[in-house]
């Protein structure tokens, strides 16, 4: 009796374990028609002030859509790049997920993980409510796969007091820029604060140099890997780009040891008045303004490419936006929420709360944003186009060779020529792999 009882118990235990192990159903199994609809929403802004905004949007949306429940999750910038891939691999893909523009988003489209939003955007009033130029980088083979939430670009900011003290003007050519650096250095000031512990920071410099030193058609053929294998990344402009970057290091225009400092660490130095300039994103303006006062700094477009074959009026930067999972159970609801999130009303709220330019039409104005941010957005609007972030605009396997190479150039352990020949090899390999698929 007793033994039979225990045998039963252990059998039950085994059965329970088996059930637990293989009984897990993929989430979102409930039927769409009647029960509440759950939309999973995943982004890369876990900072409290950002979360507050998204929570506000969700609350507002759920008020008018009682049958929809938005479940939000977020991780920071660097880990996001990993986590989204883990989610894709596991099949637990969120219904709406953040993506950088360009190659980063196109690979989701290529892999069949992103819903085609062309119809939803172009055949409704949505197209009048978002800045359409910001949609361009989310287009793959002519179709829209992502909707921009905000716009962003890189500018050189400078310490106004310092420039005044040494009689400096914002430079408009590469030589003027070098002269400014030299003057600051002669006066014992670090000319440029730069933190490259995570080498995306260097890739923003190189991306800007490339855009202005390499012919646009050649650069596009290289980035998209459509150029003949033997010509990939062989334009002398790429070597020149790394050489100019190296020059800034060798002349002592960057602070000491950029590879050992994080970007935010370098930004603190700039805010503390320990450096004359820094290359930062428009979205960081508000942080700098909080730290040193909105009138204490000015900005100019980095004149990195004087004399080059590229388009000198390009600005490095990209929109940030969202994509919808292709196999979502609730495409209607997901698209509807995304439309609400990117609407001008929410856009204004975004700019007001965070000081970061939204991609919604009319969201950035003197009422909602700092004058310097408004001026930044004007610069974006007058630029001839955007050179996307290099690290999300070319294939990741090339990035993994290119970016560490930039760190090596800073350390003086590799020459620009060596780095580019490694990039050429990597590009050839990737091109071959893509052909074989």
């Amino acid at each position, binding site marked *: 009796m007793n*033994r*039979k009882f225990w*045998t039963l118990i*252990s*059998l039950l*235990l*085994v059965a329970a*374990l*088996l059930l637990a*192990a293989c009984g897990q159903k993929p989430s979102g199994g409930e039927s769409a028609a009647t029960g509440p609809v759950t939309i999973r929403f995943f982004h890369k802004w876990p900072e409290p002030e950002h979360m507050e905004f998204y929570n506000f949007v969700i609350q507002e949306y759920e008020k008018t859509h009682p049958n929809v429940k938005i479940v939000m999750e977020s991780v920071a910038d660097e880990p996001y*790049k*990993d986590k989204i*891939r*883990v989610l*894709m*691999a596991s099949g637990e893909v969120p219904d709406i997920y953040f993506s950088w523009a360009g190659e980063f988003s196109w*690979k*989701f489209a*290529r*892999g*069949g*993980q992103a819903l085609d939003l062309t119809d939803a955007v172009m055949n409704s009033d949505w197209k009048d409510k978002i800045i359409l130029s910001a949609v361009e980088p989310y287009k793959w083979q002519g179709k829209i796969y992502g909707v921009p939430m905000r716009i962003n670009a890189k500018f050189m900011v400078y310490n106004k007091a310092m420039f005044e003290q040494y009689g400096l003007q914002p430079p408009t050519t590469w030589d003027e820029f070098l002269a400014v650096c030299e003057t600051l250095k002669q006066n014992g000031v670090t000319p440029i604060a730069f933190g*490259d*512990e*995570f*080498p995306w920071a260097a890739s923003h410099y190189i991306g800007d140099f490339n855009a202005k030193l390499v012919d646009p058609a050649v650069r596009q053929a290289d980035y998209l890997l459509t150029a003949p294998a033997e010509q990939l990344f062989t334009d002398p402009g790429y070597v020149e780009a790394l050489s100019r970057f190296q020059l800034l290091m060798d002349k002592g225009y960057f*602070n*000491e*040891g*950029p*590879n*050992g*400092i*994080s970007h935010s*660490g370098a930004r603190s*130095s700039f805010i503390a008045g*320990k450096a004359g300039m820094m290359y930062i994103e428009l979205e960081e303006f508000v942080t700098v303004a909080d730290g040193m006062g909105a009138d204490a700094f000015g900005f100019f477009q980095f004149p990195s490419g004087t004399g080059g074959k590229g388009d000198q009026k390009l600005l490095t930067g990209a929109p940030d936006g969202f994509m919808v999972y292709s196999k979502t159970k609730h495409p209607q609801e997901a698209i509807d929420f995304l439309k609400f999130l990117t609407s001008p009303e929410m856009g204004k709220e975004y700019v007001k709360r965070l000081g970061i330019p939204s991609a919604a039409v009319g969201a950035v104005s003197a009422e909602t944003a700092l004058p310097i941010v408004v001026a930044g957005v004007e610069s974006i609007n007058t630029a001839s186009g955007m050179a996307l972030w290099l690290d999300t605009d070319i294939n*990741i*396997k090339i990035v*993994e060779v290119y970016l*560490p*190479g930039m*760190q*090596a150039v*800073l*350390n003086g*352990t*590799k020459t620009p020529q060596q780095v580019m020949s490694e990039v050429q090899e990597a590009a050839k390999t990737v091109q071959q792999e893509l052909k*074989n*698929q």
Partner: protein
Amino acid sequence: MTISRLFSARRLTPYLFLLPAILVMATFVYLPIIENFYYSLFRWSSIDPRFTFVGLNNYKRILSDSIITVSLRNNVLYAVISVFFQVFIALVLAAILEGRVIRPRWGSFFRNMLFLPSVLAITVVGITWQLIYRPDTGLLNQFLEGVGLGFLKRTWLGDEGTAIYSVIAVSQWQWVGYVMILFIVAIQAIPEELYESARIDGANLVSQFIHITVPLVRETTLVMTTITVIGAFKVFDIVWVMTAGGPNHASEVLGNYLYRVAFRNDEMGYAAAIASLLFIITFLLTFVQLRLGRSGEEV
């Protein structure tokens, strides 16, 4: 009928009790290991889950991948330095703290001081040391400058020559105290009479240490050595937090190169092959540990 007879068979019962554990182990440990070997034979990515059979190509690539060589070298460095500090130095520290001079007054103070770093979260430790290592405002460089050793200043984490050593140093700082505590426990188990008779025979502290302490904590030493070596090959977190393998892959270790290949480069098949390599290394080390452990029992 037959089933109940089967269950009542005495010799089956223990296996039935083991069954849940075996099932859990099989599902979460053995099966993934086999699956990993299987996956390493394909080229596939997380975003585009098309499988292309490539045979042993991923393993061939390991042999020609220079980053693998750097990673292995860094893991070996990690192991050698860790064994020196976390086994040898920790044992010496334990012996000093348990010695008759320090123990009565300062024993618990130093024990706690040295143990403290091991209870801190890895990220906290990593970020704190990043600040200490900062080239411009970091404590270390300022200290070197202050005591007149300015020529030793480095970009500790940003220099390809010093990055891995700087990370290894932090690991030692964090774990020496922990291993030391384990040695203290082992030393406390040594009968006091042995030291007493040694003293009567005129043995000084050094020979007491060599002839009594070292042989009698042999078991702990063996275990700690193997654990430290295996840990050095599995290391991931502290490296990822402090340098993420940079600059220019100079501080890459197998664990974080595997992670990078899988979740940055989207080469799941190749990552699985690296995981197999890591598995083989740690499996061999564990095997050695088990053998050494057994020979210890016989003594």
